[in-house]
């Protein structure tokens, strides 16, 4: 099963990168969301897959049975989901503000920090 998931993670990553490379901020943002999923899948696969049995200790038992899923990647992914959502929300608002101020969402035309016709620095002292 890990092989299928490796392939899926790769596909997610490829799609995310393709979207991030777009010159339009909305596509880039969608790519960021996909990137989060790609990373989560990667974490899950790296911790190996176990079908159906969640890492919950049943009543009367002291420890997790051997056939339960690996709890560590799940904890990591849970953190990652929340963080990537925060990042996404922040980037979304930032992109929105940038659009309102600069009047475009085309990254080629967003040259506020590095203007096209920046004058050359002084030659000496």
């Amino acid at each position, binding site marked *: 099963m890990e092989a299928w998931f490796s392939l899926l993670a790769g596909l997610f990553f490829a799609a995310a990168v393709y979207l991030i490379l777009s010159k339009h901020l*909305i596509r880039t943002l*969608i790519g960021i969301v996909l990137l989060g999923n790609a990373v989560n899948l990667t974490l899950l696969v790296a911790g190996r897959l176990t079908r159906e049995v969640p890492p919950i200790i049943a009543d009367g038992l002291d420890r997790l049975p051997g056939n339960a899923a690996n709890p560590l990647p799940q904890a990591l992914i849970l953190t990652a989901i929340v963080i990537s959502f925060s990042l996404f929300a922040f980037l979304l608002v930032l992109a929105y503000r940038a659009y309102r101020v600069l009047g475009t969402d085309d990254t080629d035309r967003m040259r506020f920090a590095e203007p096209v016709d920046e004058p050359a620095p002084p030659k000496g002292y």
Partner: protein
Amino acid sequence: MIAGAADLTFLALSLPFVAACLAPVLFRLFGHRAAWLLALAPAVSFLHLAGFIAEVARGETVTGGYAWVPSYNLSFSWYIDGLALVFGLLITGIGVLVVLYAGGYLKGHPQQGRFFSFLMMFMGAMLGLVVSDSFLMLFVFWELTSITSFLLIGFDHERPAARRAALQALLVTGGGGLFLLAGLLMIWNIADVTQMSLLLSYGEVVKASPYYLAALLLVLVGAFTKSAQFPFHVWLPNAMEAPTPVSAYLHSATMVKAGVYLLMRLYPAMGGTPVWEILLPVFGGGTLLTGALMALRQTDLKLMLAYTTVASLGLLVLLVGFGSPYAIEAAVLYLVGHSLFKGALFMVAGAIDHGTGTRDLTRLGGLRRAMPVTFAAALLAALSMAGLPPFFGFLAKEEIYLALAAGNLRSILFTIVAVAGNALMFAAAFAVALKPFLGESRQTLKHPHEAPALMWIGPLVLALAGLAAALVSTAFHAAISSPMASAVRGEATAIAVGPMPHVGLPLALSAATILLGLAAYRLLDRLRDALARFFQALGPGPDQGFDEVLEALVACAVKVTRFVQPGRLDIYLSVTFAAVAAVLLLPLFLWGEAPSEPAFAWPSLSELAMLLIAVIGLAAVLVAVDRLTAIVALGIQGFAVAVLFLLFGAPDLAFTQFMIETLSVVILALVMTRLRLHASDRRPAGQRLADGAVALGCGLGLTLLLLKATEGVFDTALGDFFGSYSKVIAHGANVVNVIIVDFRGTDTLGEIAVVLAAGMAILALIRLGKTQKQSGK
């Protein structure tokens, strides 16, 4: 040594730095009179060092210090022998006079406190440089003198010429310092010692090493840049942009001699080889002639003195490299004499500038009545510079000719060079000291008036010192010159030359020098025009080359920056992800770590369905023409991933993912409706191809990496730990929750902080928009 003596010496060495910190405060309290207080710092250091004279004259050395990095055998330690002591006395002694002089010269300047501070810092650095025992300490102080020199030359930073001169001095001397560092590291490697005092006895080892030549060349670049040897000399005349006290102190008496100091210091360890005795005299002799000729071409008093300083430094390097015992003695005498008379003459030039408003030789004359004290100091110093008896310069000159004059071709050649150089400097000395004072009075910017006491104490004391040292030459040699020469040569040396002329070859050469010099002085105006034409014909010099190199450097930096940072986000991102793909893919193939053929076990129907839905969702996002479709399709893959989490035993993840995906889609759609955008944003075919290639590379790399990673045996230690202890220790049944709130609680705290920070940033951005809109209306 008495108890605590080391601490006292350390105190004497740090006093200038303490004074540097106090200078601005003192200036605010006392104005230019703060100079009297500040001069106490070098005066105390001078007296402390003078206390070592007897000890050092007996051939002993004063050492001390503190461990710095013991594991690397680095220490903050000083080693005061005859060489270091004389330099220390010159630095602190002239330092006292320069501080007083600066008090008068810059009186009323609003930044005088800062100036004192820089000057004191330089003094501390220079003092540290000459007493340094450890290589690293020497290097640190060496570069510190470059930096303080930069600050002092650029003191008048509103003038472009001053800024240029400061930068040039820093680049040349500071850059040379880096060569010196490399050279010192090589010496360290060869001799396996980090202390000068130990290195002195390793001379044979160093000279026999195959790396000797490389180490010598590196050290020489350091020394030649600092001591303004041709063709690195350009920075020194330009440094005359600095206020005159700086020119008198740094650029004639002390800092420029650091290179000569280094050569003298390393003489026992590296000197005396054929390479040494060729390179040093050739560069020194060339510098001597260039400097002397350039000096006579000038009409500005300070520039004239600056070029004679270049010439003098050349003479010193020539002497250190010449290779006879007398030559070292001559170098020692000339170094001391030069510090005294050149410091005095610079101060005289400053006083003339101060009194009349100009330093142009052709516009000065007849000042002897208006400025009698300055005239006296100038005359005394010039007589010493010209090498007339009974002044100290005469002793030096006698010794120089004694050292150089011999029957072989090399000696004859360098004797001619020395006589010519000295004759030209003779003319320059009297041009500076006589021309402005004799002849008709000229109309100048200011009505000529005598300099204030603060400004004539310095030159007069220095000029008189040059006379006194010669008159009591026996005692002076015993206390100062001979111990210094002994330290340089590494064996006991007694200098005998006195102020009384003795008939002989040296005297004859002195006479020839004087005659030639007189002729040059008489013909000065014609000589100047001829030299001006000569140098004009030679074309642009290294000074212009410096500008060209700097401009080319800036142009190159601009080109590189514009190439690396074209300002387009997609290029930055393409490069970044291409690098990611390369990092993922290359090692797998270069080191043969590609995974073996994976086993694609057939999944269950539900799993297969969810996998397919996820892929379809991805495809839908990618091919969606308008953005709203893309956003909705984003929900498909998100939910599919959530269900996959559920299927593989992660219900907590599944529920979080459901919520987050829903929120993302809703928010994106909401924001989208507020942007008035074109529906479609298709990329041109070429870009699709390039982006697609990068994306596929990244995806393939991740897949292969994961296949390789999951091939190996899985270490379940962590999972077992959490599974075993969640209930027993942390009393929770849901292991994932226990990990998050308990085992990795601080991590979760950090996560909460990130969410909070993001939330506040979002709030700020939204608020910012609102206030802008309101103020806009």
